[in-house]
């Protein structure tokens, strides 16, 4: 029964076997007997006679559904307006950018001498860049020579202990100072030094 043509069901819903054309009878008899077809037709007749025909009023449901549709339609329109505004804004920004780029190129290429307004930042601090000093490879050196001349030799009396004469180049004051400094350095008294006065 899995391979029955759809047409046999359509025929069984409407006609009994005797009402079928020769071709239709042939089609039916290829798949089932006349009796089987008759039983199926009776079943369909009983079932079809029980199809409900009661009419109900669905106007309220229709109104609710159409209201929902209108609400949806308004939402869609609103979102479309929003989309246009976003699109317009994007287009405006693009147009401004494009125009400014074109204008700059026009100024540079077609009117190169046209004065352009530029903002210049002025600072009150002036930085002077001095050029680097010239470095040459010649070096001047100043040589200072000091010459020491030989001092004249003086004759010193080495037998000054026996001598009663004081050398002419030794003064009393110098002698005293010399002894004082000497005693301070070595820690002896004048008497211990034993030198006494010259």
């Amino acid at each position, binding site marked *: *029964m*899995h*391979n*029955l043509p*759809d047409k046999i*069901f359509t025929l*069984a819903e409407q006609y009994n076997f005797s009402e079928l054309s020769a071709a239709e009878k042939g089609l039916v008899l290829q798949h089932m007997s006349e009796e*089987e077809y008759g*039983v*199926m*037709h*009776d*079943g*369909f*007749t*009983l*079932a*079809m*006679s*029980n*199809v*409900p*025909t*009661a*009419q*109900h009023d*669905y106007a309220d*449901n*229709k109104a*609710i*559904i*159409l209201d*929902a*549709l*209108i609400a*949806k*339609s308004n939402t*869609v329109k609103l979102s479309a307006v929003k989309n246009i505004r976003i699109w317009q804004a994007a287009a405006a920004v693009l147009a401004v950018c494009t125009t400014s780029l074109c204008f700059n190129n026009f100024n540079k290429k077609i009117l190169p001498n046209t004065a352009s307004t530029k903002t210049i930042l002025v600072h009150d601090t002036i930085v002077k860049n001095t050029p680097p000093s010239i470095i040459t490879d010649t070096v001047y050196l100043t040589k200072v020579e000091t010459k020491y001349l030989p001092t004249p030799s003086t004759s010193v009396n080495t037998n000054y202990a026996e001598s009663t004469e004081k050398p002419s180049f030794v003064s009393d004051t110098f002698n005293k100072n010399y002894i004082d400094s000497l005693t301070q350095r070595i820690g002896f008294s004048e008497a211990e030094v034993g030198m006494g006065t010259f």
Partner: protein
Amino acid sequence: LKPNAHIPSTVVQERIFASTIADEALVLMLAKEQSQLAMNILFDRYFAKLVFFANRYVQDHELSKDVVQECFIKLIEVSKSFNTTHKFSTWMYTIVRNAAISTNRKEQKHMQFTADAATSLTTQSHINIDAKQAEQKLYNYLNALSEKEQLVYELKINQQLSIKEIAAIADIPEGSVKSCLFYLMQKLATQLKYLRDA
């Protein structure tokens, strides 16, 4: 699928448009333009059928209306994600079925065929039996079916869907749908014979 090709301007054009345009094109109109006309046509085509379908699970007509209404509102939201290669009816029935099953779980009710959901059995057929007795027997029989059989019965007999659509909604192979339908009709006819003999 060109939803904007022929937008009707008069009432007559609108009726012709409503009777000819495919469901899938209407969903596209809904997704792109939030078209009220498209929603109106889809509502008129499917709302009542879907309420009856949902009622099989929910067992409460008002609750079924709410379930289907929510599904239509959900359709407004998800129409953009609708794959036009699929059938709208299959898609919508699946959504409603899932929503109804979810509600059914909350309400702790079993899928059941009840007399209040359908009109009484008509006497138009050649079957000469007591209508009320047959009706009750039929419901008893249908309620004894498995869930899959009940779903196939509901979609084929009450919703008049094709075998392909039933297979897609019930998530079973087409061959299984055909086999199920064939044996369902056989059993129904047997019940009918039993009622006749009684």
